[in-house]
């Protein structure tokens, strides 16, 4: 489960930090673990022009947030709703037990919340 790639993203996360003048943002927690992920989006012409995240938690939750934010740069916001669990598991690329799948899925949940918040505003 702790592949080189996972550990690398965990220790040196990509896109880590805040966006002050964010166009959309969301935060959520995994109550079983205390994992926390907050995602900030800048959106131009309906596309994600910049993305950052902040968070605390296990290697799986934080590495996934790092990998997922890499993936969605340049994507249309209305495509975010179409991303499914399988997309995340393939991205993570390691076998996860049912409980740890929640760790991986947290950042997708937050990303979708951020997209929903964008359309609300």
């Amino acid at each position: 489960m702790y592949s080189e790639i996972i550990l690398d993203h965990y220790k040196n996360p990509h896109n880590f930090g805040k966006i002050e003048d964010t166009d959309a943002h969301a935060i959520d927690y995994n109550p079983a673990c205390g994992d926390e992920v907050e995602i900030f989006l800048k959106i131009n012409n309906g596309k994600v022009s910049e993305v950052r995240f902040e968070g605390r938690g296990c290697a799986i939750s934080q590495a996934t947030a790092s990998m997922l934010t890499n993936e969605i740069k340049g994507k249309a916001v209305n495509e975010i709703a179409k991303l499914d669990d399988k997309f995340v598991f393939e991205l993570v690329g390691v076998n996860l037990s049912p409980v740890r799948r929640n760790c991986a899925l947290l950042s997708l949940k937050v990303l979708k919340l951020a997209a929903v918040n964008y359309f609300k505003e």
Partner: protein
Amino acid sequence: MADFSKLKADFPILKQKINSKRLVYLDSAATSQKPKQVISAISNYYETYNANVARSIHTLAEKATAAYEGARKKVAAFIGASPEEIVFTKSGTEALNLAVHLIASQLNKGDEVVLTLMEHHSNIVPWQVAAEKVGAKLRFADILPDGRLDMSSLRNIVTNKTKAVAVVHVSNVLGTINPIKEIVGIARQAGALVLVDGAQAAPHMKINVKELGVDFYTISGHKMLGPMGSGVVYAKKEHLEKFPPMLTGGHMIKTVTTEKTTYDDVPHKFEAGTASVADIIGLGMAVDYLENIGMENVRAHEVELAKYALEKLSKIKDLEIYGPMDAEQKGGVIAFNIKGAHPHDVAQILDSDGIAIRSGHACAMPLMQRLGVESVCRASFYIYNDKKDVDALVNGLEKVKEVLKLK
């Protein structure tokens, strides 16, 4: 002295392998494993005398009632109480909810309740709900850097406004054993009632509620070799007689008309609905099992294990332990963190070697905030653990560092 090396054979679950390794179960503070005697008591009830208690007059019902009330006598004797002072609930959390409900019936606006920063959520959340209803205030006693309760902080916040002091006997994270007699003394001066959460104490040491002088004491059956579905509230008889029931309906009445109900005698007044009879009978068997070993022996065994574990764990580089470092001053619970490793990753890697620990906030988020951490790893011991289990944990933690490349 009981031969603890032989006890393990009584626990069928411990014979299995996890990930093709010997199961090393170090999560008894979450739930204890069950000896075959307890499992048999439950299946024997369902196979030979399942019936609803205290209702029907037939052989099975008589037998079930006798066994259920027999369990009440056993639990009462186990903690030095009278049987009519023992109310059965379905969990330790329900037990605390009932005790809080009883005390809260006397709370008014402006009253205060004193808790500590090392409480489990089940001794915080019911109080928050109760206090909000009437406009009462909760105050929290602090902890010392070594994880003991800060008694001067407690003394400062217990005033004539304090109506109750509710404290955990043994912390489920720090392992700290709180000085209950001293706390009762402080509460009495203010005229406050005392509720003690004994979920992590009653399974591991001799408890005498009369010697402690508490008003209420709660127990979780599944943490003391009993089944899930069993909890206990001890309350002084005078309180049970005075305070109103929480659940109402079947079983708890004397007479019901369309206008009015009179309640049954204590403790039955507080046991509405069909109890988890098999589980309570199982709890009675768990008490027999523990009494047979002797609670002084249980405690001595755990002190020895905690001492050994503290010594070994404190030698691991970049490992921080939370709570008292003197095994005599704590229960068999050790919370720790390894720098750079999240507790969930630690637990996952240990599990791959068959080692089960708890990881997370351990249902004590205010304590986590006070310690300045999100979560912890927690290893906890019971009668079926031995030094080999501690050695397995120590070796496992070295492997954690390798897997996470922390060396």
